[in-house]
């Protein structure tokens, strides 16, 4: 009697679990499914979409939108985006990790006050500092300059990353680096090489956040870059296919916009899939806290 009741409850639990997940998966995937379909269509604008265009139809399948993207300087924009994104990953992860180690392991008087003030500085939205940043960068000749962009992209991620790294390292027993120091490694090497390896999940997480921030930025680069040769995919996308601002709908070349979006999104999606096992380990490496 008791066992059958338990079994029924268990079955109900699984039915509920899979139903909820099915709805969530549909919710997650629908907008992307919609873009994929559009990218293989000739649908030029939103007013041509109907419910039936949501069903894949091989007779109207076409690669013309992808050909249009290939005819644009897509690969130059991609190269620029990747330079910026990897530059940001290197700067943001190094700065965040070094700060995280110092906050977790080293005796630094006044660090609490320091942490809180750094944190509050990041409350200013970029939109509120864009004019002074523009004027300052013009003065320092950092307009149309990837270094300036990398520094801006890194700053926000580095602060959030320093806290993430600190919280993670706090949960790693000190024995690891102490053992390394007993083995004759210097304190610096012990802290960095050993902890960097153990903290790989959090490093991967920060690297992804840094990458995506730089790769998908529009607001910052739109203000600080005017040379066409420094355009990234995000600016290129706007250039090629979309006109949208405020609440106005973009009107032109919907299928090209879709194809461009898919090609632009692919590298990030691949990165996420490759590294997803680390993403779910951010908290789990050191075991019980």
């Amino acid at each position, binding site marked *: 009697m008791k066992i059958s009741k338990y079994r029924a409850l268990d079955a109900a639990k699984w039915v509920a679990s899979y139903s909820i997940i099915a709805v969530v998966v549909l919710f997650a995937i629908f907008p992307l499914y919609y873009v994929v379909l559009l990218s293989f269509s000739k649908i030029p604008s939103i007013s041509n979409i109907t419910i039936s265009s949501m069903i894949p139809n091989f007779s109207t399948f076409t690669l013309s939108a992808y050909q249009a993207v290939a005819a644009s300087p897509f690969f130059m924009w991609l190269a620029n985006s990747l330079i910026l994104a990897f530059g940001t990953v290197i700067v943001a992860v190094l700065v965040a990790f*070094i700060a995280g180690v110092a906050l977790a392991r080293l005796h630094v008087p006044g660090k609490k006050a320091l942490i809180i003030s750094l944190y509050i500085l990041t409350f200013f939205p970029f939109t509120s500092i864009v004019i002074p940043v523009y004027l300052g960068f013009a003065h320092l000749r950092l307009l149309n300059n990837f270094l300036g962009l990398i520094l801006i992209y890194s700053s926000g991620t580095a602060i959030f990353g320093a806290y993430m790294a600190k919280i993670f390292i706090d949960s790693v027993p000190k024995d690891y680096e102490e053992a390394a120091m007993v083995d004759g490694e210097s304190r610096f090497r012990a802290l960095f090489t050993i902890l960097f390896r153990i903290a790989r999940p959090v490093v991967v997480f920060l690297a992804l956040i840094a990458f995506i921030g730089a790769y998908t930025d529009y607001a910052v680069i739109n203000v600080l870059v005017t040379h066409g040769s420094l355009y990234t995919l995000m600016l290129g996308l706007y250039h090629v296919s979309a006109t949208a601002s405020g609440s106005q709908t973009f009107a032109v070349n919907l299928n090209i916009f879709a194809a461009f979006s898919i090609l632009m999104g692919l590298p990030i999606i691949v990165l996420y899939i490759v590294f997803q096992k680390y993403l779910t380990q951010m908290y789990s490496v050191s075991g019980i806290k």
Partner: protein
Amino acid sequence: MKRAFSNEISDDNLKRFLTNYLYLLPIIGLVLFIFLYPIAYGVYISFTNFSLQHFFNATLIGFQNYETLFRTGVIYPIILQTLIWTVGSIIPMVLLGMLVATILNQKGFKLKVPIFTVILLPWAFPAFISLLIWVGMWNTNFGIINQFLALLGIAKVNWLFKTVPAWGALIITNLWLSFSYYTTFFLSSMQSVPDEFHESAKVDGANMFQRFSKITWPSIKGAVAFASISGFIYTWNNFYPIYLLTGGGPGTSTYSLTVYSYSQAFSFYNYSLGAALSVVSVIILAIMAVFMLKYTKVLDMIS
């Protein structure tokens, strides 16, 4: 002899002490370089009449911009809307993230890896592009959402140009953009709870809810607090969803402080009023954030 020895020690300590600060130098340098001057400048122009008319001859006018905001009362609804936007977004995000993470974390759940991969997609796709896609989907006359609703016999909803539906569209879109992130964060922290804990609780007859509240919750609540507070701050300042979906409209009814400040500065060229709005926004946010950080003890976690 003895004295020299103790000097050596304190020299050594001092050196150590300074070296420890060196580790923090990169982040302090970066933050000061990127944030400090622009912020100081922004605060300064909030006390001037810097605008298109006074582009070359801006003068200090004291608290006039702040008086304009508070005396005319324009800022109060905007503050309320910012709270609706932030709290209205963060609660569903955290709840959905928690629900999905709890389901995926059940022992015996099949297809966890492919499902998790699909759930990551909204986070992995460039948000700016996703928003443009959503703008098209919410479109009143041609949008796919209204077309699906028509199948169910529901009349066209004017999603982006009526206040209540506009909030619904904004919050659902924002939920889509962010729930993957919270799911990942919570799943990761739940996996730090060893399976044996759940097994032994099961043997002791604890049901699902007891296990959640007695085992899972205590070990993830720090992560939840941290994610929620950083999400609160991020959402408060998150500019694109409102700017691209409703542009703050209809009228001014979906402006948040950040978007309103941007519009004042870049649509109406009233830079000083925009700057004053940013300052007010940051002060309110900082007070709330410090309070939340203290109350949830996240401050002890990060410092």
